[in-house]
């Protein structure tokens, strides 16, 4: 490694050339506070919370962006520096509505944490923000600009990672605020509800619309049979809300918690991910044979679907007609499950636990009613909302016993939770269906990893299948533009709206920048999924007995007319702006 020698607080350390003071200090065991900086998202050095003293520099420098150089002498904790940081924090707080006790981000707020760390015992300035400034036109998000500190992390992730750039700083000076063009509502601009802005926000300015009250009401209604379905990635992230390290698999305790919350049935959505593989794999095989609307593009990610409908409507014919695993869960619960149990589907409430804020939008989409007049899924809540429910119910999560789902799904469905996973799961099954034999290895490693775009050709039964997986909508945009220009050609594409896939979804536990700047959440959470997959016995969707039974008893075969009625949907172009 190419290094430079610097001293930090008098201690000599080797730091990677090109790294920032922030990184070098962290490697030397020193934490420098940050606020506007978020690794790989926002590095603009504007909030001045991370200032340090560099010998010879004219002013204090921002450690988050200042690169180290040979012989550099850095002081991170002098009385002068601490005073400068504290004054900055006081000024930031002077127009922050301090609503801490009733704020959704109480105890997970970076600003609150700094106030505590800096020993801010009284306010020198009176805050001029007394009223909330709420925008809640979308189904997934609440923005309260009275808590915004103008760090621009949301703006950066919206533009650079998601390429939609529907929010930005408007006006100037003291009037500066984050909003849409012409201060329009989010519902009037091409917001696709991925929620990446929420997990990037250091304060309570951006939060998901909390739907837990609806769940409590359903649970408390004796006339309702409440079935909860939990998405693949939740088990490798939920633990973080209870202090477990990033990448801890808490499946057993999660199931125990859901049982204790009083749901009438706890369903593993890995099963309907398996079901998606069967339907989507069949659809792909047919379309590949017929050279029909290729590349076929996956449809599990509702923010991707919204992006496609608004920004790239010309690709709508390429979308798989399969409903997402969430919607398939709802569809089979209100049809098959209701029939098996002898319950009127009107009396069933389906609740999904999702890594995703766009799922709150997806449940209201057209043509998502396996039973006409009834939504497939009634309530969709995020990982964070589930954690809130567990806490509120007084369940001590970390002391729970391990409990199992009623029926085990394949881990092909499980790997849906990370970028490349839907593709790999589909390939595991498509390969066997097409060739009649097992692939050399069940692991299709080339589609794994956190790269924005991954592409590879597979030989399946003597024919080349060109596949690609993109995550993050900026990568999706790049890929679609290359296809449009003729630069690239593919047969099968997996798209996930969030960078790294669902493990890094907008509904996942919020980790503060002090964690995200040094741990790659996407990698650590995905590793937990692949680890479970590598140890599992059943790793292919078509081997799942539950799925076999579904087809034997209800759907006859994948892609059948009956399957299409319950498990498939339609899309239509949407106006980009509603002006």
């Amino acid at each position, binding site marked *: 490694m190419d290094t430079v020698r610097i001293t930090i607080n008098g201690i000599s350390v080797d730091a990677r050339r090109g790294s920032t003071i922030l990184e070098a200090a962290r490697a030397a065991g020193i934490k420098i506070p940050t606020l506007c900086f978020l690794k790989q998202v926002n590095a603009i050095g504007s909030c001045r919370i991370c200032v340090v003293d560099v010998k010879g520099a004219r002013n204090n420098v921002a450690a988050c962006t200042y690169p180290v150089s040979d012989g550099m002498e850095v002081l991170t904790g002098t009385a002068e520096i601490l005073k400068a940081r504290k004054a900055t924090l006081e000024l930031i707080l002077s127009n922050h509505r301090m609503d801490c006790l009733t704020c959704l981000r109480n105890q997970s707020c970076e600003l609150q944490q700094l106030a505590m760390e800096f020993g801010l015992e009284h306010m020198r300035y009176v805050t001029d923000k007394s009223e909330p400034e709420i925008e809640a036109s979308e189904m997934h998000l609440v923005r309260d600009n009275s808590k915004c500190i103008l760090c621009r992390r949301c703006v950066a992730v919206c533009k650079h990672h998601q390429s939609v*750039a529907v929010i930005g700083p408007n006006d100037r000076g003291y009037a500066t605020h984050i909003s849409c*063009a*012409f201060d329009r*509502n989010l519902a009037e601009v091409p917001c696709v509800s991925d929620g990446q802005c929420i997990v990037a926000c250091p304060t309570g300015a951006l939060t998901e619309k909390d739907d837990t009250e609806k769940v409590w009401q359903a649970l408390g209604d004796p006339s309702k049979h409440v079935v909860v379905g939990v998405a693949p990635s939740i088990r490798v992230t939920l633990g973080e809300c209870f202090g477990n390290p990033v990448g801890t698999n808490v499946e057993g305790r999660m199931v125990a918690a859901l049982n204790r919350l009083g749901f009438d049935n706890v369903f593993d959505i890995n099963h309907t991910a398996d079901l998606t593989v069967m339907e989507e794999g069949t659809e792909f095989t047919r379309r590949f044979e017929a050279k029909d609307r290729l590349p076929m593009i996956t449809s599990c990610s509702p923010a991707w679907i919204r992006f496609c409908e608004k920004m790239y409507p010309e690709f709508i014919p390429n979308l798989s007609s399969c409903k997402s695993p969430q919607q398939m869960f709802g569809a089979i619960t209100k049809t098959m499950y209701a029939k098996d149990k002898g319950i009127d589907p009107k009396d069933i409430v389906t609740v999904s636990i999702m890594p995703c804020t766009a799922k709150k939008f997806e449940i209201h989409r057209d043509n998502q009613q396996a039973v006409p007049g009834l939504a497939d899924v009634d309530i969709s809540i995020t990982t964070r909302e589930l954690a809130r429910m567990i806490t509120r119910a007084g369940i001590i999560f970390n002391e729970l016993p391990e409990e199992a789902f009623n029926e085990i799904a394949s881990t092909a469905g499980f790997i849906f939770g990370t970028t490349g996973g839907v593709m790999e799961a589909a390939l595991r099954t498509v390969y066997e269906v097409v060739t009649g034999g097992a692939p050399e290895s069940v692991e299709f490693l080339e589609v794994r990893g956190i790269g924005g775009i991954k592409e590879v050709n597979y030989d399946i039964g003597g024919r080349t299948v060109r596949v690609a997986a993109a995550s993050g909508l900026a990568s999706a945009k790049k890929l679609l533009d290359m296809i449009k220009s003729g630069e690239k050609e593919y047969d099968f594409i997996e798209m996930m709206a969030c960078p790294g896939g669902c493990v890094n979804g907008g509904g996942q536990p919020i980790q503060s920048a002090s964690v995200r700047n040094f741990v790659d959440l996407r990698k650590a959470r995905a590793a937990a999924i692949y680890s479970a997959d590598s140890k599992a016995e059943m790793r292919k969707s078509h081997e799942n007995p539950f799925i076999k039974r579904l087809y034997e008893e209800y759907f006859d075969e994948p892609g059948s007319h009956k399957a299409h009625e319950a498990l498939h949907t339609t899309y239509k172009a949407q106006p980009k*702006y509603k002006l």
Partner: protein
Amino acid sequence: MPNQKIKVPFTGTPEQERLLREAIERHRDEKGATMPILQKAQEIYGYLPEEVQLIIAEALDLSLSEIYGVVSFYSQFSLNPMGKHVVSVCMGTACYVKGAGEILEKCEQKLGIKAGEITPDGKFSIAAVRCIGACGLAPVLTIGPDVHGRLVPAQIDGILEKYMKE
């Protein structure tokens, strides 16, 4: 929802759009093309309505939000055309301490618009301007070529009513 920032309907002509698209083509490959294009657009239309900002955003493959962020940052850009009568209220130091704030407020009340906006009939717009150099007349406002000085808020209704009748 109708745009809350722009008070008059858009009446751009095909000729204006042709000129705008020409300007976009001329500047698009330059670094920082947004500024000269916005300046030219304002020259063509007299202001920068949403329709015009959207043409620019789409042509430059930027979002409307990015364009609006620039437009709302610089005071040289206007979201509304100027009315037939431009009421310029001086907000210079002398006028300010003599109560220009109340004068402005009174104008806004009477006309039902804020500074920087235009009445829906296109007759009046209000501008809060920097010192016009008539400090001896503070607080002062101008309406077209007419100067009204040493004002008290109670006079405003009467002054504006004269122009309303025109």
